[in-house]
C-alpha cells in the first residue's frame, strides 16, 4: 500500500530515459485531444438543444482534464477510465431513466415540440378545384409526364400540359410543366411502371406557368396541394382546411382543438408522479404488476434453492476421495455452464414444444400425458424453473467444490471415528461450514435471477399473457422482461411507464446489494 510521490506533492523526478519522457508527452497530447473531442461533443449537443447529453460530456471532459492535468490526482488516473465507462454507460443511463419516469415519453410523444410543429407544418391537403390525370410517356431514353385536366375546362389554366424530362428534376426543386397541344408522341407506360417509380414521383413537385404547385395525389392524379396548417405568432396552429385553432397544451404534450381533442404526434412533457400513480392505482396495471412482482421473487428464490441443492449434493459426491473418475464427471456436469446460454435455452424451447418436442414425446410414451408447456401458466412456470436449474446448478457446483476444499479433512476423520455417516457429515459439517461464505454469493445469484431477462425473452417471451392487462404482461414475465415489453414491444412503447417500473426495480436492487455488502462484511 503506497502513496505515489506525485500525489504527495513531492518534486517530479526527471527521468534519464528519453522513452519515458516522450511517453509522458504522448500521454499529454492524447489527453488534450480527448478533451478537445469531448468539448466538440458538448458544443454540438448544446446547439441541438440536448442539454442532458451536453452536460454529460461536459462533466466527462472536465474530469478528464482535471485527473490527467493535475499531478495530485496521479492515483486517480488508473481508475479514471473504468469510472468514466461506468459513469457514461451505467450511471448516466440510470439518471436519464429516472428522469424519463417523470415524463410521458412514448411512441406518441417521441419528438421534441419543434419537430412536432414542423411535422404539422409539412402536412398538405388537396385543394378543391382542378386535378390532372397523368401518364408517364417515354420518348427514346427520356421520360416525361403528360397531364390532362379532369372535368370542365378551367378558364385560366391550360388543359393539357407536359413536363420537362424527369431526368432533369433536381431534388427539392419544382419541375416546370408547359402547355401543349397534343399528347407527346412517345409510348405511354403502364400502371406497373408508375408503381415502380412511385417513390420518385411522390417527391416530385410540378409547377405550372401560372405558378401553381402540383403534387401526386394518387396513382393516377396530380393535384394542387396546399399546406394544411399555418403557424401563428403565439405558437398555436390554424388548420386551414377545417378552419379551427390548435393550441399547444404543455400539460399533456399535444396540440388540442377547442373541443379538447388531441392531435398526434405529441411531444414529451413532465407529468410528475403520474406514471407511479398509474402503477399503484390503475387496476389494469396494478393487478398484473403485483402478480409479476410476486412471481419474480418466487422465481429468483426457488432458482437459488434448487440450484444450490443440486450443486451442493453433486459437489459433496465429487469431493469423495474414494470415488474414481471424478474428472470425467466434473467435466460432464459443468457442461451446462460451458454451453452458451442463448443456445441451450433455445434447445429447451424446441424440446418442450407441445406438439413435436422430445419431452412430450417421452412423457406421452411413458405416462400418457402431454402438458401444455407454453400455454398453461403453472406448467410454463415449472418449465422455467426446470430449465433455469439445469442452467444454474453448475455455478453452485463450482462454488461449493471450491469452498469444500478449504474444510479441514480431520473434521471428517473425527466424525468417522464417532460413527458419523455421509448424511451426518453433509448436514452437520459441510453445509454449516460453507453456508456462511456462500451467503453473499447466494444473494448475488438471487439478484442475477431477479433480473434474468435472457431466459424469459428466449424461452417464453413472457407468455401466456395475463388477460385484461392494459399493458403487455405475461404470467411468466419477470419485472425486467415486463419493463422491456412495455418499452420496446407492441405499438405503445410507453417509455415513461417502463422507466418508472425500472426505477422501482432499481430501488429494490439497491436494497439487495446493500444487504449483500453488509452480510459479506466486505473489507476494502
Amino acid at each position: 500500500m503506497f502513496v505515489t510521490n506525485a500525489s504527495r506533492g513531492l518534486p517530479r523526478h526527471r527521468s534519464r530515459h528519453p522513452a519515458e519522457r516522450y511517453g509522458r508527452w504522448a500521454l499529454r497530447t492524447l489527453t488534450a485531444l480527448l478533451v478537445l473531442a469531448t468539448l466538440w461533443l458538448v458544443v454540438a449537443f448544446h446547439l441541438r438543444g440536448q442539454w442532458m447529453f451536453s452536460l454529460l460530456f461536459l462533466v466527462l471532459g472536465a474530469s478528464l482534464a482535471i485527473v490527467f492535468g493535475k499531478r495530485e490526482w496521479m492515483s486517480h488516473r488508473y481508475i479514471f477510465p473504468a469510472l468514466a465507462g461506468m459513469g457514461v454507460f451505467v450511471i448516466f443511463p440510470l439518471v436519464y431513466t429516472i428522469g424519463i419516469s417523470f415524463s410521458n415519453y412514448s411512441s406518441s410523444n417521441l419528438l421534441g415540440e419543434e419537430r412536432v410543429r414542423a411535422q404539422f407544418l409539412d402536412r398538405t391537403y388537396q385543394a378543391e378545384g382542378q386535378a390532372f390525370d397523368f401518364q408517364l410517356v417515354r420518348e427514346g431514353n427520356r421520360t416525361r409526364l403528360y397531364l390532362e385536366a379532369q372535368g370542365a375546362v378551367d378558364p385560366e389554366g391550360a388543359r393539357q400540359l407536359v413536363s420537362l424530362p424527369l431526368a432533369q428534376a433536381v431534388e427539392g426543386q419544382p419541375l416546370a410543366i408547359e402547355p401543349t397541344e397534343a399528347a407527346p408522341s412517345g409510348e405511354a407506360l403502364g400502371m406497373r411502371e408508375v408503381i415502380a417509380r412511385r417513390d420518385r414521383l411522390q417527391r416530385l413537385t410540378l409547377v405550372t406557368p401560372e405558378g401553381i404547385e402540383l403534387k401526386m395525389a394518387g396513382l393516377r392524379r396530380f393535384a394542387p396541394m396546399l399546406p394544411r396548417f399555418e403557424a401563428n405568432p403565439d405558437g398555436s396552429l390554424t388548420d386551414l382546411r377545417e378552419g379551427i385553432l390548435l393550441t399547444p397544451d404543455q400539460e399533456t404534450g399535444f396540440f388540442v382543438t377547442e373541443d379538447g381533442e388531441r392531435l398526434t404526434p405529441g411531444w414529451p412533457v413532465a407529468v410528475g408522479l403520474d406514471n407511479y400513480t398509474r402503477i399503484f392505482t390503475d387496476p389494469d396495471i396494478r393487478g398484473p404488476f403485483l402478480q409479476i412482482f410476486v412471481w419474480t421473487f418466487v422465481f429468483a428464490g426457488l432458482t437459488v434453492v434448487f440450484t444450490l441443492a443440486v450443486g451442493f449434493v453433486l459437489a459433496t459426491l465429487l469431493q469423495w476421495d474414494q470415488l474414481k473418475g471424478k474428472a470425467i464427471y466434473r467435466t460432464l456436469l459443468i457442461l451446462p455452464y460451458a454451453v452458451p446460454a442463448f443456445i441451450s435455452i433455445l434447445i429447451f424451447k424446441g424440446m418442450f414444444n407441445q406438439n413435436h418436442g422430445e419431452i412430450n414425446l417421452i412423457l406421452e410414451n411413458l405416462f400418457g400425458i402431454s402438458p401444455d408447456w407454453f400455454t398453461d401458466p403453472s406448467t410454463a412456470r415449472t418449465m422455467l424453473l426446470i430449465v433455469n436449474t439445469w442452467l444454474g446448478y453448475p455455478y453452485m457446483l463450482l462454488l461449493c467444490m471450491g469452498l469444500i476444499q478449504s474444510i479441514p479433512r480431520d473434521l471428517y476423520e473425527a466424525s468417522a471415528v464417532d460413527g458419523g455417516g455421509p448424511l451426518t457429515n453433509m448436514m452437520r459439517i459441510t453445509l454449516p461450514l460453507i453456508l456462511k461464505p456462500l451467503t453473499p454469493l447466494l444473494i448475488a445469484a438471487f439478484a442475477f435471477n431477479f433480473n434474468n431477462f435472457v431466459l424469459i425473452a428466449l424461452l417464453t417471451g413472457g407468455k401466456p399473457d395475463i388477460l385484461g392487462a392494459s399493458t403487455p404482461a405475461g404470467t411468466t414475465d419477470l419485472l425486467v422482461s415486463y419493463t422491456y415489453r412495455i418499452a420496446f414491444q407492441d405499438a405503445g412503447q410507453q417509455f415513461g411507464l417502463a422507466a418508472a417500473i425500472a426505477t422501482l426495480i432499481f430501488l429494490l436492487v439497491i436494497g439487495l446489494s446493500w444487504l449483500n455488502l453488509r452480510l459479506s462484511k466486505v473489507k476494502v
Partner: protein
Amino acid sequence: MAMVQPRSIRARKLGAHLALLGFASLVVFPLLLVISISFREGNFATGSLIPERFSLEHWALALGIPWERTDGTVVQPPFPVLLWLWNSIKVAMASSLMILALSTTSAYAFARMRFKGKAPILKGMLIFQMFPAVLSLVALYALFDRLGQLVPWLGLNTHGALILASLGAVALHIWTIKGYFESIDGSLEEAAMVDGASTWQAFYHILLPLSVPILMVVFILAFIMSIMEYPMASVLLLDEDKLTLAVGAQQYLADHNQRWGDFAAAAVLSGLPITLAFLLCQRWIAGGLTAGGVKG
C-alpha cells in the same frame, strides 16, 4: 484418505456412481439431441437419437453453402450464420480486451494505492453494477441515437456502440483482479521503486507478469459474457448482417416457422468452440470465481 472405513463402502460407491451417471446423462441428453438433430433430415425434433436418415443438409446451410436435395430443388441458406459468428467474435474480442485493460489498471490502483474516496467508489461500483442493463435500455438507445447523429460509427446499428456499451460492466472484474493483486506481496514492487522504477513501471514489469492467470480468467469471463449478451444487442442492432449470434440464433425458432434442424447445426457450429474453450480453462475459471470473492 480416510483411515476409518465403514463396511458398506462398496455399495455406497456403486450408488454414487449410479447417481452421478444418471444425472450426467440427464444433463448431456439435450446436447446430444441437438447434435443428432443437426445430422437428421427435415426440420422436426422427433426421431431416434441415432439419425435414421443421415443428411448433411443443415450443416451445409449453416456454413452458407446452398444445398441441392435429391429431388433437384436447391435450398438457400436461411441466415448468414458465419457472418453472425464473426460479428459476435469481433465484438466480444474488442470489448473484452478493453474491459481487461480498464479493470486491470483500476484494480491496481484499488489494491496498491491510497487515495481519497477509495472505499465508497469501490462499494458504489458494486451496487451500481447490480442494476441490469436491460432496464436502462431506453436511455442507452437514446444516447447512441443522439451520438450517432454526430459520430456515425457510434450510432445505432453499429458494432462500435455495442462494444462501447459493454464498458460499463467492469465492477465485478475489478473486484476479482483486485483480490488477486492483494494476494501478491507488495514488497516486490516496492523494491523496484526503491531502485528507481516509476509507479507505472512497477505495475507493468513486476505485477502484471505475476498475474497472468487471473487476467486470463477475467478475459475469458468477459469474452463469454459478451458473446452471450442479448438484450443490448437486440435493441442496438437492426440489420440482419449486423446481428450477433445471440440475437440471430433465435430467428430460427420463430413461433410459426421453426427451423429446428437448421438451428441445431448452427448451434453446434457456434457453441462448440466456446464450450471447448471453457472446458479447457475450467480449472482456472473455478479458481477465479472464488478468488475475488469471499475473504471475510
